[in-house]
């Protein structure tokens, strides 16, 4: 069993299987934060223009409203500090727009969704994590802890997991088979699932590879898993299209 590169959240479900979810590290967190920051920045640009309109009061029409505008300004500052994050996480099931964009989600340490209390707490503690500047405390905490949690996450008992976009089509995809008959793969050896995964990931990436690398990698895979004699292999390696078609039949052989 290969060791996972990133830390994972292990959850034992009542169905007696263990879920294992990838934890989001500091890169994902920063990216999501920047996206949210951008959104809030645009909000403030709009608010600023509205506000100057109200205060400069070209038409003399808003004089009555300027008290209200000031109230809104003060409330707005507070809202962007705290309400935005908390409300988003409560309403969007642990995500803010930035987190959704990056594909990360807040969950409790047992993998269940967060409630109002957790969201409120982890965002209250944002103030401490932002000490003394640029989220220094939070970043240190994220870097140094095993599951990349900041102080707010510790107090609320939450962490961030990553959502990968996985395409299952690569297992089913059948390329148009070339007209020339392919040599049959030696069916004596069954491919282990790890090898299948390797071949499939090569096939999925092949169209975007440099031609030289494409041929070289294809040839090595044929040598490793093909089990063909010299003549067949030489014929096969003549064209990259046939190499990949052959590899595909290898992988799909046992359906």
């Amino acid at each position, binding site marked *: *069993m*290969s060791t996972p590169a990133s830390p994972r959240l292990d*959850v034992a*479900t*009542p*169905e007696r*299987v*263990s*879920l*294992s*979810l990838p934890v989001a590290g500091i890169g994902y967190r920063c990216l999501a934060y920047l996206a949210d920051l951008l959104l809030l920045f645009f909000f403030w640009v709009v608010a600023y223009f509205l506000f100057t309109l109200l205060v400069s009061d070209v038409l003399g029409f808003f004089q009555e409203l300027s*008290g*209200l505008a*000031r*109230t809104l*300004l*003060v*409330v707005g*500052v*507070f809202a962007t500090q705290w309400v935005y994050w908390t409300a988003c996480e409560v309403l969007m*099931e642990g995500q803010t727009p930035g987190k959704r964009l990056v594909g990360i989600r807040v969950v409790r*340490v*047992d*993998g*269940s*969704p967060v*409630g*109002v*209390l*957790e969201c*409120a*707490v982890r965002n*209250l*503690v944002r*103030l*401490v994590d932002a000490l003394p500047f640029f989220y220094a405390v939070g970043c240190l905490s994220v870097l140094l802890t095993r599951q990349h949690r900041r102080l707010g996450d*510790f*107090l*609320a*008992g939450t962490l961030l*997991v990553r*959502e*990968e976009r*996985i395409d*299952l089509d*690569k*297992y*089913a995809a059948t390329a148009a088979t070339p007209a020339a008959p392919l040599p049959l793969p030696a069916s004596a050896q*069954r*491919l282990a*699932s*790890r090898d*299948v*995964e390797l071949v499939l*990931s090569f096939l999925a990436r092949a169209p975007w590879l440099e031609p030289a690398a494409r041929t070289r990698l294809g040839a090595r895979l044929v040598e490793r898993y093909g089990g063909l004699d010299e003549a067949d292999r030489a014929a096969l390696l003549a064209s990259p299209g046939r190499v990949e078609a052959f590899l595909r039949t290898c*992988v*799909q*052989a*046992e*359906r």
Partner: protein
Amino acid sequence: MAASLPAFVGRRRPDWDALKGLLARQRAGTLRLEELRTLDVLYRRAAADLAHAQTFHAGTDVHRFLNQLCAQAYAAIYQPPRERWAATLAFFRHELPRTLRANGAFVATSAGLFFLGILLGAAVVLLEPRGAELLVPRNLREYVARGEMWTDGILSVAPPNAVASAIATNNLTVTIVTFASGLLLGLGTVFVMINNGVHLGSVAALCAREGMGPKLLDFIAAHGPVELSIIVIAGGAGLMVGQSLIDPGELPRSQALVLRGREAVKLVLGCAPFLALIAGVEGFVSPGDFFPTWVKALLGLALGVLFWGYLLGAGHPTPTPTPTSGTGNLPHVDPL
């Protein structure tokens, strides 16, 4: 017998896609009862597939995919119960006062630190006239030297509702910082409480020395009792957090923190509405001389007595256990 990877995916994939579709509809809130049963069945099958993938296809994309799919279904099926108005009401009727009384020692300690700060600040300014230069901010000193209150100007530059909301957010920030800095092993809270005390004590002493004591009292009387109480309570909550870090008892530190932190947070969040209320008083009643001093003092006293009467008196005699919100993890599907 393990099937090959593509065969496994090809055979089981329709179920997974169906489960994915149901989960999307569950999120959108358009799930019917019979579909809910299907969701449950499909989740169990996916869990079995995950176990299979774990054993025979570990580390592949299928394994990762099933992990994610099961996690989503798990999250949908084992949801925490939604907090509703009844739960909020019960929180303010029973839980908040009870939590406060159960942790009275922390609040008392926090109050002690605050008074220590006040005494220190006042003593320094009263005993050593030049101490004020050290402790009181420059602009405040200038106001006091001119014999006017710095709060008098507030209403002439901004309307009272703007003042009230500014005060509300400022107080909220102070409260949050007081509480949250408890995460720095409690030292942050200790510092904030003493610091606030020193600030208040030194300003009060300076005003008293310059003959402005009545004016300061006039400003503080209406909102002071409740506002300072809330800061003290937030300090108590911060100390609870700090204590769980220094002395977690039997539990690992992180778990002790979550457990005690939950209690502490209840105190802080419970105080928020009162903070907003008192900011209204501070913005509308306290500044200026629209109300005579005795009215302000009476109001402040009444509010303080009401606040503490509520905290110490409410939620006492009911023997029925109140359901704790959000901690239970019972199977609970909410199709809405």
